[in-house]
C-alpha cells in the first residue's frame, strides 16, 4: 500500500514526457519532409523485418518489388491497374467532399460492369462496334447512376444513413451478378467470358488497355476542374462543410446531394464499363476485387484532390503488385507481402498525425535520459 502511494505521488511530480499541440500552419516543405521521413522509416523497418524473418537480402527484396510493378512487360498492366483504381477513387471523391460517405463504390462499379456485360452478351455479334461500345457505355453509366442515386434520395428525403445504405447495395449488386452467371453460363464455371461476350472495346492504336488509360487521364483533369472551379464543385464544398450555411444562402441541399451521387455513381458505372469492356471481357462477382473499398483510402490519402490521388493510387498499386512478386520469387507465403504492405501503409497513414500535430519533448526529461541516468531513481531522491 505504502509503495503504491509513493509511486502515485512521484507520478504527480513527474513532468509529462511529452505534450502534443496542434500545428497552426504547415508549410508544403514540412508536409513533404514528414512524408519522406515516414516512407524511409517504413522501408527500413521492412528491411529489418525481412532480414529477421526470412534471412533474405532486403535490397534484393526491394528490387523484386520494383520489378514486380515495372519490370519488363509489366508496366502497361501496372499503369492500367493504376488507372482503374484511380477511376473508382475519382468516383467516390465528389461524394466525400460533400461528407457523403459512399461505401458502395464496389457495388456501383459491379452493376455498371454487369450492365455493360449484358449489352455485350445480347448484341456483341449483331451490332457494329461503335454503336455497341456507345450502348455499353450508356448502360454501364446508367446502372452506376441508379445504384448511386437510390441511397442519395433516401438520405436527402428521410435522412437515412448513407454508409450502411450504400454498403448494403454492394451485396445486392453481387447477388445480381451471381444470378446472371447462373442464367448466362450453363456450364457452371461461374464466369461469363469472351466466348459469350465478345471482346468489347477495340484497342486504341493497337495498344492493349490504352483506351482505358486515356479515358481515366482525361477524367482526372475534368474532375479536378469540376471540383475546384465550377459552381457545382463550390456547392458540393459548402454542403459538405456546413449544411446550415448551404441552407442560409439558398442552396437546395437535396438537389446537390442527389446530383453529386448521380455523378459519383456514373463514374463508378464508367469504371465498370472500362473493366468489363476494355480489360477483362468477362464478368464475375470478383472483377472489382475490393477496389471499391481501396478507393476510399486512396481518396482520403489524396485529401480528395484528384491530382494527388494519382500519387496515392500509384503507391498502393505499386506495393500490391510488388508484394505479389516477392511471394512468388522468394517462395514466401503471400502473407509476408501483406506484412510489408501493412508496414508501409501504417507509416504513411500514421505520419498524417505528425503533419497535423507537433510533439514537444519535455526538457528536463530529455536531459536526464541523455545523461543515461534512470529518470525514476533520480527523481525519487
Amino acid at each position, binding site marked *: 500500500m505504502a509503495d503504491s502511494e509513493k509511486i502515485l505521488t512521484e507520478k504527480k511530480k513527474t513532468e509529462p514526457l511529452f505534450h502534443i499541440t496542434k500545428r497552426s500552419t504547415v508549410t508544403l516543405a514540412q508536409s513533404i519532409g514528414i512524408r519522406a521521413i515516414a516512407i524511409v522509416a517504413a522501408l527500413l523497418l521492412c528491411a529489418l523485418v525481412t532480414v529477421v524473418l526470412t534471412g533474405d537480402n532486403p535490397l534484393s527484396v526491394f528490387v523484386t518489388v520494383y520489378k514486380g510493378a515495372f519490370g519488363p512487360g509489366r508496366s502497361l498492366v501496372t499503369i492500367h491497374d493504376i488507372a482503374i483504381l484511380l477511376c473508382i477513387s475519382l468516383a467516390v471523391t465528389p461524394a466525400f467532399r460533400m461528407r457523403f460517405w459512399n461505401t458502395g463504390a464496389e457495388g456501383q462499379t459491379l452493376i455498371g460492369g454487369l450492365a455493360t456485360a449484358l449489352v455485350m452478351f445480347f448484341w456483341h455479334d449483331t451490332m457494329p462496334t461503335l454503336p455497341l461500345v456507345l450502348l455499353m457505355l450508356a448502360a454501364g453509366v446508367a446502372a452506376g447512376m441508379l445504384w448511386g442515386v437510390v441511397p442519395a434520395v433516401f438520405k436527402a428525403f428521410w435522412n437515412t444513413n448513407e454508409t450502411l445504405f450504400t454498403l448494403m447495395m454492394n451485396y445486392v449488386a453481387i447477388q445480381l451478378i451471381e444470378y446472371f452467371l447462373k442464367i448466362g453460363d450453363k456450364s457452371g464455371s461461374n464466369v461469363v467470358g469472351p466466348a459469350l461476350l465478345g471482346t468489347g472495346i477495340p484497342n486504341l492504336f493497337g495498344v492493349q488497355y490504352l483506351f482505358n488509360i486515356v479515358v481515366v487521364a482525361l477524367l482526372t483533369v475534368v474532375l479536378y476542374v469540376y471540383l475546384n*472551379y465550377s*459552381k457545382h*464543385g*463550390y456547392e458540393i464544398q459548402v454542403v459538405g462543410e456546413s449544411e*446550415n*450555411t448551404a441552407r*442560409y*444562402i*439558398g442552396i437546395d441541399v437535396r438537389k446537390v446531394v442527389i446530383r453529386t451521387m448521380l455523378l459519383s455513381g456514373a463514374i463508378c458505372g464508367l469504371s465498370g464499363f472500362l473493366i468489363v469492356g476494355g480489360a477483362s471481357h468477362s464478368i464475375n462477382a470478383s472483377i472489382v476485387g475490393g477496389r471499391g473499398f481501396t478507393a476510399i483510402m486512396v481518396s482520403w490519402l489524396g485529401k480528395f484532390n484528384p491530382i494527388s490521388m494519382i500519387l496515392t493510387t500509384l503507391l498502393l498499386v505499386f506495393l500490391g503488385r510488388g508484394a505479389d512478386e516477392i511471394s512468388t520469387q522468394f517462395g514466401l507465403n503471400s502473407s509476408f507481402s501483406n506484412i510489408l504492405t501493412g508496414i508501409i501503409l501504417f507509416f504513411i497513414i500514421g505520419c498524417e498525425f505528425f503533419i497535423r500535430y507537433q510533439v514537444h519533448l519535455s526538457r528536463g526529461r530529455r536531459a536526464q535520459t541523455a545523461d543515461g541516468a534512470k529518470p525514476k531513481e533520480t527523481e525519487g531522491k
Partner: protein
Amino acid sequence: MSNKIALQLKGISKRFGSIRANHNVDLDLYHGEILAMLGENGSGKTTLMNMIAGIYYPDEGQIFVNGEEAVIRSPKDAFGYRIGMIHQHFKLVDLFSATENIVLGIEDGGKYRLSDAEKKVEEITKRYGFEMDPRKKIYNMSVSEKQTVEILKVLYRNADILILDEPTAVLTPQETQKLFAVLRRMRDDGKSIIIITHKLHEVMAISDRVAVMRRGEHIATVVTAETNESELTEMMVGKKVSLNIDRDEPVGSTDRLDVKNVSCVSAEGVQLLDHISFSARAGEILGIAGIAGSGQRELLEAIAGLQPLTEGEILYHNPKTEATEDLRNKTPQQIRDLGVRLSFVPEDRLGMGLVGNMDIIDNMMLRSYRHGRSVFLDRRQPHELAERIIASLEVVTPNAQTPVRRLSGGNVQKVLVGREIASSPTVLMAAYPVRGLDINSSYMIYNLLNEQKKNGVAVIYVGEDLDVLLELCDRILVICGGRVSGLLDGRTATKEQVGLMMTKIGGGD
C-alpha cells in the same frame, strides 16, 4: 428556512482570457431555502454555479460547505460535498432506462443490482412527488420527464444542495407548476436549492430569496417577500450607461417589411413564435430586445426563408417596382429571385454565415457565386471585394487566402458584415452582431449599421445589451416567450421599461 448556512462563497472571481465572468462574489445559501439567481445574459450566473458544481475552478476566493472550506475540482468532488447541478442541456443515454441513467457512473464498490436501484428511485419519486416510471427508456420520454431523470440523478447521489440552470426554459406552464411543487417539497425536506431563471414572475412564485447578478458581480440578495418586480428589474439592468453611439433622425421612413401575425412551432410542437406583428421601415434601425431564446432567431430565420410558418404573412414592399411580395414559406433562393435584397448576419457566424474552412475569397462568393450563366466560378470579383473589405474594415489577416476560422472573432464578424452590406441590401438583419467583440470592433459595426440606415436600408438589430439598444435603435420591439411584449420609442424608453417587458408581457403596470 433555518438560520444555518449550507453554502458560502467568499470573494469568488473567474476570468476567461480578457473577459471577467465573475468578480469578487460573496453569496450565502441557507438550509431549506430556495434561492433564485437573477441576471441578464452574460451576467455570470451560470459560470458562478459551474464553479460550485466543479465544472470550473475559481481563480480567486473560497467556497465553504457547512462552514468548512471545500475544494471542488470536479463534479465528483461536488457530489462528495453533496452538491449536484442540473444542467440546461441533458446528458442522458437514450437507449437506457431512467434507473440505468441514474446509476450510471456510480462507483460505491457495491454490487450492481438494478432492482435495488429501481426501488431506491421509486422511494425518492414517492417522497418528493415526481411522476416517473423508473423502467421507462429515455427515448420514450418528454422533455420534462428527462429533466426529472436529471434531478433524480442528483438526489440519488444524496445531494443536499441542488442547482438548477434555467429549468423552466424547456417546460410548459403546467409542467413548471409541477416542478415548483416538487421543489417546495424538497425545500421543506431541508434541501437547499438554487434556481437560475430569467423570468421574474417565476422568481416571485418560487423563491425565498433572490440574488441579483450584473456584469459578473453580485449586486444584492433580497428577501422575495420584501421586494417587487420593478425593483428587481432595476437591480438587474442597472443604471443607464452612456455609450455615445451616433443616432440620426430617420428620414422619409416608409414601411419596407410588414410582418403580420407570424407564428411557428418547433419540431417538438413548442410554440416558438406566437402571432408576432410589426413593420420595419426604410431608413431606421428597429431593435429587437428579449431574453435569449424568446424567438429572436426564429423570427429572423422566418423572414430569411429558413423557418416554415404555421400562420401569418411577411410582406415586402419593393422600392423599385412598388410591388408587394409575400415572403411566407419561400426559400432564400425564391426570395432573391423576387428581387428582394435581403441581407442577414446570423447569430452563428461560422456555422451559418460563413464556412470556416474556406478562405475569405470563397466566403465572399457565398451570396454571389451564381451570377452569370457560366458553369465556372468567377473568383476575380470576390477577390476584389475581399481586398476591399480587408482594407476598409481593417480586417487583421495574413491575406485574402486565409481560411476564416483562423481569424479572431471580431475579424470574422467584419468579413461577414462586410459581405452582407456589399450586396447593397434594402433590408439588413443582424443578430447579436457585436457579441464577443471588443469595443473598437463593436463601434465599427454600429457605424456600419448607421451608414446603412442613412442609405435608406431597413435595419433590424437583435441585441442583448440594453444600453446599446437604447442608444442605437429608433424603435425597439420587445418580445417575450415568442410574443410581442411591446413596442417602444428608442429615444424615450428607459432600461426598466424594456427590462420589465422582456420578462413579462406588456411589462405589467
